[in-house]
């Protein structure tokens, strides 16, 4: 396993995030351990994105604590995130990747070969000179993945990586996630897509109303969800 002790496990204890008096995360305790992808599931507004941002170190807690490998303050250089709607820097595909490599773990002399590796990994070979904002949605998502992987992260957070993509584009993104996880990068992703969760997850964190009612190995969760909320969610009921 590539993930160093300084990043994993990510442990949240009684983690709270509130805004304008509304609890977005409500006393969440959770351990994200090395291994197969951890998938956050739950209805809209359940706190999945906020949990990802907290675990990435982007959103500060208003209560409780979060620690990476036992430390509450760790340089986030080896964590990376792909947002649901990634922003393309206004430059070419290759320049987006070179930017992500800047100041990172690779020497400048390695940048060209690293860019080529990343383009190959995400299936964007031949598009390196194209302006990134001109790519299709699926291509942008894959470029965002490559950009996040540029600095060789130990943990990769993905916020709804297949959302709004057609099946072919979603499959391409899933293939990349699978390849990345196989290389030893810890993937933590949120999704509404039960099928994607079944295909990719090692464990499921089920969220509802800012809490985590259930955290279980994926096979166990899908075979026999322990909570009524999870059963309803998997049955396609609207949780309000």
């Amino acid at each position, binding site marked *: 396993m590539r993930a160093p002790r300084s990043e994993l496990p990510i442990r949240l204890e009684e983690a709270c995030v509130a805004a304008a008096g509304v609890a977005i995360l409500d006393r969440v305790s959770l351990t994200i351990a090395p291994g197969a992808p951890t998938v956050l599931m739950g209805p809209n507004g359940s706190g999945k994105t906020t949990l990802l941002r907290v675990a*990435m170190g*982007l959103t500060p807690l208003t209560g409780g604590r979060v620690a990476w490998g036992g430390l509450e303050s760790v*340089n*986030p*250089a080896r964590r*990376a*995130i792909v*947002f649901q709607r*990634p*922003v393309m*820097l*206004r*430059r*070419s595909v290759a*320049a987006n990747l070179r*930017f*992500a490599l*800047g*100041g990172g773990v690779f020497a400048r002399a390695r940048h060209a070969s690293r860019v080529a590796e990343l383009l190959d990994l995400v299936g964007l070979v031949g598009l390196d000179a*194209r*302006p*990134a*904002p*001109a790519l299709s949605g699926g291509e942008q998502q894959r470029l965002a993945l490559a*950009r*996040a992987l540029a600095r060789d992260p130990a943990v990769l957070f993905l916020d709804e990586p297949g959302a709004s993509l057609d099946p072919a584009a979603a499959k391409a993104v899933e293939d990349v996630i699978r390849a990345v996880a196989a290389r030893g990068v810890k993937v933590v992703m949120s999704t509404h897509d039960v099928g994607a969760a079944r295909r990719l997850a090692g464990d499921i964190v089920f969220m509802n109303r800012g809490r985590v009612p259930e955290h279980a190995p994926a096979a166990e969760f899908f075979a026999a969800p322990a909570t009524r909320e999870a059963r309803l969610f998997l049955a396609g009921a609207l949780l309000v």
Partner: protein
Amino acid sequence: MESDATAIQLLLRGDAALFAAVRLSLIVSLSAVAIAALVGVPLGALVALTRFPGRSAAIVALNALMGLPTVVVGLVVFLLLSRSGPLGALGWLFTPAAMIVAQAILVTPIVAALTRQVIEDLWLEYRDELTAMNVGPLRRMATLIRDARYSLVTILLAGYGRAAAEVGAIIIVGGNIDGHTRTMTTAIALETSKGNLPLAIGLGLVLVAIVVAVNALAWFARRAGQRYAG
């Protein structure tokens, strides 16, 4: 310049005085815009990306300075550069240098205020990505300036428009000396006051043509950049 000839005839004839005025107009205005870019772009980006006490007041002041009256700037620069003024020793009064200083003072707030707005808007878009990529403050500013470059070109063109059309400040600090500090705008003012309207109108058309040409050049450069550099 001959008073009975039109500017077009003078241009076709290669009139030295007219070409000197055109040349000086371009030198003064483009130099002023270059100085304004060097000062105003980083200043606007800095205000956009930093939080400090009185920031709102600074933004209001910057915006207000965009409407700085040209004659007031001319008067202030005149007082600063006059023989008894604090910068009198430079000996810049009634030279192109004084005209550049005056126009730079007029253009810098325009560049800084508009840059602040553009960079702040782009920062809202980029904030999460750059924070997640652990990008430090200096690289962040350089990135935002680079990626806002096409908008910044438009801002600099607005600044150039202000400088090229300006007459109040440069006539005070330059003195409209024939062959030395006479620009297109000061020549137009002079010819109009002399009643030589055909020449004044002709000079005005030449000035408008130059402004259009500079803008067209910038537009084509922007298009080419977007097409080839993303």
